[in-house]
């Protein structure tokens, strides 16, 4: 047997060569600067609107603190650690389970929420960095008449199989239809390219988004 604890790039204290740990990944992509990584078609959360609110936070420490997030138009108090992601705060802290944890590394889009109107992957954003910003989840979109055409269009076209990825597509589509009110089929394909569906419901999703645009899109 060969003894080996020196894998390049791996930490000797916790060998996980199949995947970077969440904490080292978050540190690696520089989330302490308040930036969420960007997916194709999904916007950056890098605008420095609220970094001041969290500038003194130790991002690697533990211990919980209470923060107030503006979620779906109302303030919500949630206890988080500095390392808690926005996704975790929404799902576990606020029981808003529409946004799903799937890849946990910003590569599938299933946790997408609107942050000041832009679609971001909430698994790559720290909850403390979302303080002072306007967060809208799929639950908020579903309850907002502005998005009725989108919800109806997707429903009418049966745009779900297992349905686990769909909330992410809905949130991204909400942003997409605002920026692209009259999309071509290619626009829709490109616009949804940051989200992944395993059941292969894409054809119906495209139909649903096109139908939503035809109904008048989002307000």
């Amino acid at each position, binding site marked *: 047997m*060969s003894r080996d604890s020196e894998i390049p790039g791996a930490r000797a204290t916790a060998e996980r060569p199949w995947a970077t740990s969440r904490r080292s990944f978050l540190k690696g992509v520089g989330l302490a600067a308040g930036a969420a990584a960007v997916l194709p078609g999904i916007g950056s959360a890098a605008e420095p609107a609220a970094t001041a609110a969290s500038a003194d936070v130790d991002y690697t420490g533990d211990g919980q603190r209470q923060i107030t997030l503006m979620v779906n138009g109302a303030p919500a108090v949630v206890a988080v650690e500095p390392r808690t992601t926005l996704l975790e705060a929404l799902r576990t802290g606020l029981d808003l*389970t529409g946004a799903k944890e799937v890849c946990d590394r910003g590569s599938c889009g299933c946790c997408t929420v609107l942050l000041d109107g832009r679609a971001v992957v909430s698994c790559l954003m720290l909850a403390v960095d979302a303080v002072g910003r306007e967060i809208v989840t799929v*639950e908020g979109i579903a309850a907002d008449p502005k998005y009725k055409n989108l919800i109806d269009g997707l*429903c009418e076209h049966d745009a779900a199989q297992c349905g686990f990825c769909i909330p992410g597509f809905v949130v991204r589509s909400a942003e997409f239809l605002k920026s692209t009110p009259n999309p071509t089929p290619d626009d829709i*394909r490109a616009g949804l390219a940051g989200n*992944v569906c*395993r059941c292969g419901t894409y054809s*119906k999703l*495209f139909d649903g988004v096109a139908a939503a645009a035809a109904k008048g899109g989002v307000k």
Partner: protein
Amino acid sequence: MNPANDVALENERPRVDIRQKITGAARYTADQQPARMIFAKAVRFPYGAGKVVSADVEAAKKVKGVLEVEVDMEEVAEYPGAPIGHIVAESRAAIEDAEEALALKFERTAPKTDPVALHKAPESPQGGVFEGAAAVVEGTWRTQVQTHSCLEPHGSVVDHRGASAEVWGSTQTTFGHLDGMKGPTGLDASQIVVHCEYVGGGFGSKFGIGREGDLAARMSKKYQRPCKAMLDRSEEHLDGGNRPGSIQYIKLAADKDGKLLGGRMDLVSIVGHGRGGGGVAGLGDVYDLGAIEETESEINLNFAKPRAFRAPGWPQAVFALEGALDALAAKLGMDPIAFRIKNDKSQRRKERQYRVGADLIGWKDRKPDGTATGRVRRGFGMGSALWPTWPTKCGAQADIFRSGRVEVRVGVQDIGTGTFTLVTDVAAHELGIDRDLVTGRVGDSRFPAGPGSGGSQVSRSAAPATVNAVRDALDQLKASVASEWKIDKEKVKYGKGTFSTEDGAKKLEWAKACALLADEKVTGNGRTETGTEGSGTSDCVQFAEVEVDTETGIVRVKKIVAVHAAGVVVNRLTFENQICGGVIQGISYALFENVRLDPKTGAMVNADFIGYKIAGSKDIPEIVPVLDVEPGDTGVRPIGEPSTIPTAAAIANAVSNAIGARIMELPITPQRVLAALESKGGAA
């Protein structure tokens, strides 16, 4: 459906639970968080083979919020991700900290990661059918290991309360989960309730409760608190199920008329550290292959055991065989379809499916292999498959309420295929009433038992069971009407929401008849012992049109035509969705997905969704699902599995047609396309 022989059953309304899914209101197992819940997670070995040599369990136990840590220092791990212990804690963050505090150190032995190096090429058989044959083709086809990649991970939430337990399972078998929970909870099936109303995909990987379900149950029992154990994404790739790879040596002979004479097939499955997942299917059912000498064997790698994956064994086998058939057709100078019609066993395909599919894909524009010119070259290909039926038992219950509403209960799960919708639509159709009056309920172990979502057997068995339950309830409602009219029950006629006497003198609408019920509701029971009423084999053929950029090697699938016998389609939209889904998974398998192992350490280097690519929106072509119906089709036929079988074969044949070199290996990466162009090699 005994004898529901009314194809008008088909409707185009979205699935009944679509709004819950679109709005995020649907709660999956991953979304359950009962009060006081604790979390459990496996400790895993990261490399191909070896064991842990050092673990600071005491330090991990001291982490705030940690309840328990165990590491098995004796366990010899045989694959990356092999569980070697577990951590239980108040939060996921505490588990993360405990993992770090464990400071695991390992030693590893040399892993087996390269199936080609472990494969012994068979000697080319001579004589026999090969002697005097007009055409002979010989080659070795290879397919990759593919992970199921369900978006909702495997796992359970178990709330053990001493004498009972409530369980949420991300499972494709409600009753398998119930059975599996008996041991670790120490309870009888009568004391356990399993919920799985919403399941985020399964594809064959979610049978049994798994190590994670077992852990959640044991820890909930031990601490008398709800316990959640769900895999993370890397664990999903490493230990959440995979389709075995294959190395398939094929030598086939045909006569000058294109009749297959037979040959030799050495089918090797690449199966990780143990058996499973169906190996490579033999394909004598689709074509009459002649006198085939076939061997089946396995190569073990240091990777997780395979699990059944949507049509286990089939996509890989069809890819190889259909490639060999195209190569033979080219040698004989025959059109690939004409060649297949000479050897196909299915009348349905020969008489109709090939013609319909060829018309819709534009087969007349297909040029002989390798004669397309220019940088971007177009090609066409096809592949055939079938899916059989076998006896499946399923039960159902139906309530008719005094209010006129109906509830149908079938315990089986809905993993995205539309079981909720199927039982609702079948009941509404059988009663001739509006769907909005019917509530279908599934995914609950308190309801009548039925099969797991494997082998495409849920729809074809839940449909007749529902029909029988509804008929039983209707019979009781008829008795109320008969009593009101003071006639024999047998003399009450019913159709499309109206009760009447034989002479039509008396009539009663649905709502008024239901109001006659003496009790709040009547309950009917229904069963099927076979699940094959009016059903039968699902024959299918798929056609692909591709464009290949000969400078970059990039393949773009332009169009897929999928012609499928599906019998009675209950709901047009769920039918189309599932066919398109099977095709898209086939595209993803053909072009992208591939488990990559580090040859030195045996670690999986792409156990995420960054390096493990699955098809995205820009990879989706125009897909044309075609329902092939014959007048004799009276029942529901399988579509889940067959829809994904021939896609990769059709794409590979289309690429071979475009570039004039056979594609011998999946996935069809740009490098492989360029290499094939370079060598013009492959089957000779």
